[in-house]
């Protein structure tokens, strides 16, 4: 990556040398720029359609540092609006979720519709008290509705939005990573979608820059030593460790392709999982402590074999979709966002996933496992947040600021991923995906990034391969 390619980005990120300055984690200026350049232009995860099943249901979410309302109108169509009144800015909805046909501002009662039938446009300004008498019919209501997102996408039930009308289409934005997002969202038996959100979103504030979360989940296999304490106490669903390791033991078994870090340089996404394959590996018992769940997994394994046949598939352990949506794909199974609350704090939101039609007993076991593993009370993730907290504060030091961080692991050892047109991979533990993430971040931070924000016209993938060691 050269300076000309990334403009401002290069000031902080030197991908060729695997060096990144500490100030990107603490600088107020860089943070303000992130709001505009990254969160103002990228696709952001907003929520899941299963959270608003009925007409007029709404869920209040966030995009970057701002509050948004995800609504479902009578027709079933889903909308996302900025949660602020156009008159004086009052937050029009201060509930976490609910059902409402109209959002009436508490201050002067301007009322916004969520239903195309009530006014000309969803989110449009439906009611303005004394409109004729005091606005003399001159206020152009069509210009003063709730601010809608520029683009919205519903991908297998997951709702995404962007403030940038020039943003690439969602499927272009997600690129080959789609295969791994499917692995999270699809039913375990292979049916598209078919997962749902467990009621209740965990939300908590962590004194850490948001990127520490994103980079950790995009490919930080290296930090497992940090979790030794939880491995020692064995919270895994089959007893040992903290999760099942789906590795076939016996000879001549069908195995999936190697577990690897797979990154998408033109997109900024990355995942730790198995390379694409076309056949299921042999069944490996899971959740053996709870026979009914093990039975369920055995059952859907066979269903999956039947449903998918020779289709291409991937397996995802953890991953991040640029910029701030990460996921757990296997154990536990969740989507989470790293919302920026200033450079030194983030607010984590966690959505837990299960197969929508799984038996209650199975859902219960999974839920309990998820909760002991993840979130602020999760035996595993508590230690992650501790590391991010103190990494953030240490990034602010005057003297420390002279020593950039090291992202050199596996630098130059990336290979083109088979069966993927836009991905590289490394089987050994590597920081390949973190480099991909920050290179993409630098491009978004670059004022003149223009074309390169469109993955298909970006050259990171080609450049990275060109830089490979012989």
């Amino acid at each position, binding site marked *: 990556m050269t300076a000309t390619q990334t403009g401002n980005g290069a000031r902080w990120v030197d991908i060729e040398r695997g060096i990144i300055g500490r100030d990107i984690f603490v600088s107020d200026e860089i943070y303000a720029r992130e709001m505009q350049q990254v969160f103002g232009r990228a696709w952001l995860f907003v929520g899941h359609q299963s959270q608003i099943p009925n007409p007029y249901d709404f869920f209040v979410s966030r995009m970057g540092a701002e509050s948004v309302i995800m609504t479902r109108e009578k027709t079933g169509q889903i909308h996302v609006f900025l949660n602020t009144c156009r008159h004086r800015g009052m937050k029009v909805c201060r509930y976490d979720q609910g059902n409402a046909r109209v959002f009436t501002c508490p201050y002067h009662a301007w009322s916004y519709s969520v239903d195309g039938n009530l006014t000309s446009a969803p989110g449009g300004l439906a009611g303005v008290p004394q409109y004729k008498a005091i606005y003399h019919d001159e206020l152009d209501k069509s210009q003063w509705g709730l601010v809608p997102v520029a683009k919205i996408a519903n991908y297998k039930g997951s709702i995404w939005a962007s403030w940038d009308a020039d943003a690439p289409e969602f499927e272009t934005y997600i690129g080959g990573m789609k295969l791994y997002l499917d692995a999270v969202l699809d039913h375990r038996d292979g049916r598209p979608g078919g997962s749902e959100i467990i009621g209740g979103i*965990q*939300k908590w504030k962590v004194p850490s820059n948001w990127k520490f979360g994103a980079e950790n989940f995009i490919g930080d296999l290296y930090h497992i030593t*940090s979790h030794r*304490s939880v491995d020692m106490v064995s919270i895994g669903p089959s007893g040992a460790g903290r999760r099942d390791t789906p590795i076939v033991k016996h000879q001549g078994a069908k195995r999936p392709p190697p577990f690897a870090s797979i990154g998408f340089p033109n997109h900024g996404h990355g995942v730790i999982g198995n390379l694409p394959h076309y056949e299921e590996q042999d069944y490996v018992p899971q959740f053996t402590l709870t026979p009914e769940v093990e039975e369920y997994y055995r059952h859907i394994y066979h269903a999956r074999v039947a449903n998918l046949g020779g289709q291409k598939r991937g397996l995802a352990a953890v991953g991040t979709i640029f910029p701030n949506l990460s996921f757990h794909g296997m154990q536990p199974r969740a989507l989470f966002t790293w919302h920026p609350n200033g450079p030194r704090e983030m607010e984590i939101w966690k959505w837990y996933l299960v197969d929508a039609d799984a038996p209650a007993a199975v859902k219960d076991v999974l839920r309990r496992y998820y*909760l002991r593993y993840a979130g602020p*009370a999760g035996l595993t993730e*508590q230690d992650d947040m501790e590391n991010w*907290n103190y990494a953030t504060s240490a990034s602010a030091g005057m003297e420390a600021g002279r020593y950039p961080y090291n992202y050199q692991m596996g630098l130059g050892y990336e290979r083109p991923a088979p069966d993927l047109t836009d991905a590289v991979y490394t089987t050994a533990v590597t920081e390949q995906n973190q480099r991909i993430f920050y290179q993409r971040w630098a491009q978004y931070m670059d004022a003149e990034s223009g074309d390169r924000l469109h993955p298909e016209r970006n050259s990171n993938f080609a450049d990275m391969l060109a830089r490979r060691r012989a």
Partner: protein
Amino acid sequence: MNTRESAIDALLLQREIETFYYVEAELLDERRFEEWLDLLTDDIVYFMPLRRNVKFGSQDEAENSVEGVDAAWFDEGKHTLTQRVAQIKTGIHWAEEPLSRVRHLVTNVQVTDAGPGIAGARELGVKSRFLVYRNRVDDETDIFVGQRADRLRKVDGAWKVARRVILLDQSTLLAKNLTFFF
């Protein structure tokens, strides 16, 4: 037994229960976690729901996440609680290494029901309120306030917690983690 005598019985029970909670707090704050585990029945239900901001009138159905169904901060039993203790004892549970300075202030202890009766009670419903203060390393400080609704059961002559529902008065958790016990 006359009313005065039964009033005295209630006094004695109240004192017994308050002592139970004070001892529990002491065990937790002195990090005598294994001894604390002994105060829990083997079948304890330890539940702390998420709280939500909802429209007036819908609090009852929507304000708290549902036990056994929804996500929560805690929804577990003794096995997991025991693992939490074991993890702290590894000395490499970084979120608690160095250990936090935790203090449990217990107030408003109310015995809400006693079975079969005050005298010779074998099972109790007890509500209490807590302020849990947590300070660690340099200046990390958290204050947690809320209510505990417990079921206490007498096992081998000693009271134990058979069920604990913790209502933390926060919607978005204002702390990076929950590495201690309520």
